[in-house]
């Protein structure tokens, strides 16, 4: 069997997983329930087989994820017997911070701040993430081992050189590393790998009839009764799927007939827009992702 480009990408990711497990003191894998996290989980299981991954998994739960996502998370964790930690910023949630009223502050408080608090609470020194360089221009510049100072901030102008596959995992107290084993994968690679390996993913990726509203060019699903409608707005049932998953009020779907993996891949390969356009927070001014990463966003 020839060694294809997917085999190369898989080998690179497994190598990285093993390096971190061997050299870093307290690693954790950030698990966001999306397709990239599904691939990451699959790679982690492969990397250490027959041992279970020697680190826990962490989900930062904003309380606004699609219901199908949390159900999928709990089912997978139980099936695989992995240690799944769920962290919620309970204080902010009880104070009623929500995506409808609080916009960018919501993302900061329930995602960025919650992530920092969780990493500090458990004392994790290295956190795996499923970020890919093809997602966005500032990500395209980030190292696989991305160093964070004691305030979790990324300094894009002063990144550690990363030579060959000799990763430098040394840090001082309070500092940490974000590790992106699938940095070099494209969206297409992820889908082809999911198909090749039959990796389970959240059903939201497949087209189905769902109650949605259209706002500013985004198709938003009314996933539960906390959904707020604009005056005169009524949910309509449309056949939609999601290319990326997050908090349901902030995640745009696309109208699609693709209800099988083959159909989704065929659609993705001919797609005319890159996947992050459906993520509402990325469509701000040029450089918004970089700014948020400097502030400690994953």
């Amino acid at each position, binding site marked *: 069997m020839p*060694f*294809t*480009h997917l*085999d*190369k*990408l*898989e*080998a690179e990711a*497994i*190598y990285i997983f*093993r*390096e971190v*497990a*061997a*050299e870093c003191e307290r690693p954790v894998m950030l698990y966001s329930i999306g397709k990239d996290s599904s691939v990451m989980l699959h790679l982690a*299981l*492969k*990397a*250490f*087989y*027959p*041992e*279970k991954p020697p680190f826990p998994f962490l989900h930062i739960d904003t309380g606004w994820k699609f219901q199908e996502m949390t159900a999928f998370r709990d089912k997978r964790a139980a099936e695989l017997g992995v240690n799944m930690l769920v962290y919620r910023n309970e204080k902010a949630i009880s104070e009623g911070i929500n995506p409808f009223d609080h916009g960018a502050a919501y993302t900061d408080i329930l995602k960025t701040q919650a992530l920092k608090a969780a990493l500090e609470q458990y004392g994790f020194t290295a956190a795996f993430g499923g970020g890919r*360089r*093809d997602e*966005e*221009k*500032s*990500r*395209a*510049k980030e*190292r696989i081992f991305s160093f964070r100072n004691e305030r979790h901030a990324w300094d*894009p*102008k002063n*990144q*550690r*050189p*990363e*030579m*060959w*596959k*000799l990763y*430098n995992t*040394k*840090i*001082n107290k309070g500092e940490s590393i974000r590790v992106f084993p699938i*940095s*070099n994968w*494209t969206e*297409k690679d992820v889908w082809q790998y999911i198909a090749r390996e039959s990796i389970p993913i959240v059903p939201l990726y497949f087209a189905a009839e769902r109650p949605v509203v259209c706002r500013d060019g985004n198709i938003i699903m009314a996933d539960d009764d906390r959904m707020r409608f604009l005056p005169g707005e009524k949910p309509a049932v449309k056949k939609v799927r999601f290319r990326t998953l997050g908090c349901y009020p902030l995640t745009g779907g696309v109208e699609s007939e693709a209800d099988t993996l083959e159909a989704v891949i065929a659609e993705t390969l001919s*797609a*005319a*827009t*890159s996947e992050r*356009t459906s993520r509402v927070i990325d469509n701000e001014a*040029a*450089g918004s992702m*970089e*700014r948020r990463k400097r502030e400690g966003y994953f």
Partner: protein
Amino acid sequence: MELLKFITCGSVDDGKSTLIGHILYDAKLLYADQEQALILDSRVGSRGGAIDYSLLLDGLTAEREQGITIDVAYRYFTTDRRSFIVADTPGHEEYTRNMAVGASFADLAVILVDATRGVLAQTKRHARICALMGIEHFAFAVNKMDLTGYSEASFRDISKQIAALSDELRLSEKVIIPVSATEGDNVTKLGGNMPWYTGKALLDFLETAEIRAAAEQGFVMPVQRVCRPDHTFRGFQGQIEAGGVAVGDEITANPSGETAIVKSIHIAELSASEAKPGQPVTIQLDREVDVSRGCVFSRSTELKIAKELAATLLWMDEKSLISGHDYLIKLGTRLLPAVVAGIRDKVDVNTGEELPADFVGKNDIVRCTLVLSEPAVLDEFRLHKTLGAFILIDRVSHATAACGVVEKAVSPADQSKRQYPDSFDIPIDRGFLHIRDGKAAGFGARDESLPVHPLGGEEGNGFRLLCLWEKDAEVEYAI
């Protein structure tokens, strides 16, 4: 489909980002919304409304503001013939280390040369670093041909300069292509402006360049970790870096030298009877051997086990290199203390001449001797890349201070070829330092043995030692 990793490099303003931007744009490899963003960005960019292709790659705010590339950007594209990952690297000397990051990742280098300026010091620096990092395939793209009126004469002239550089660096394989990155001549297709050029367009070359898998001798696998889920299973995990391995093979565990038979192989989670280079494996052996992370399995090849090595370094830290200073070295999967015991010379990036290395700062290429805290398994970079490449880590800041390649392992036999007597006394300012049996033995109240390192090569009769009792200073003595 096959994957090709390549870099673009060359001096600042030679048009690297523009070239790649143009390939992505021309080959319709852009998603529509990226194209939208590009057009929007161009309105505030430097080309006055025309599409500024470089904005596709310069993704950091500081880069767009200053109109320069600071760090390497990775882009991904696929044509009908190949998948590509391109690392677009900065041209400024200031950011050379970021260029080196891209070079260490690539199989092929596209080096841009400005047709109006010819081969510059920075072109040579980049070519030198590419060669140092082990790149074997080169395409020199002579850019901005439009500004020379597509002159064949100036192309021939620059080709001569490139040939001279290529000879000096002993580049094994190179092509030279005249292009215009802004106008698109010979980028994705041959343009009519240079009928005198009979070779391939750049993209065509990239799609068809034959990249030989490095044929390294024997089987080599550095151990990343020991996998022990329970008392019934003890497997060694790592990536095969050379050769293949099959169940039933007898392999050697280095540095202990013990041999054992391969009992089982897993490629990731799947049981297999054999495995190939590049595959991530878990290997079980038929008997208990002394193996942990940093050990290396081998078969049918002679690896070196050495404590001292001659190396070429690219210095990358803001802090300058201090001879006698100790660092952490990461070599393969091994991490251990190492001392830069002697700096032989510094390479003039422009001429390749050896200069005295009285000061070694960021972006300098130097030749030196490293002494490890204990013997490690290694090899010359030209023989086994993963056992001959290393980084040095600053022990306080933990910065990656340098990267380097092993030129030669100094075997214990070479070390014993000292050209001075085993026992003698050296006058120093507070009395005599006694050398006994090749070791510095005792001075004043301190009575400890220190290793003595002979000065290599033509420097002949001399040695240096670490004078630990004087603030880690290094002293050198000629006899």
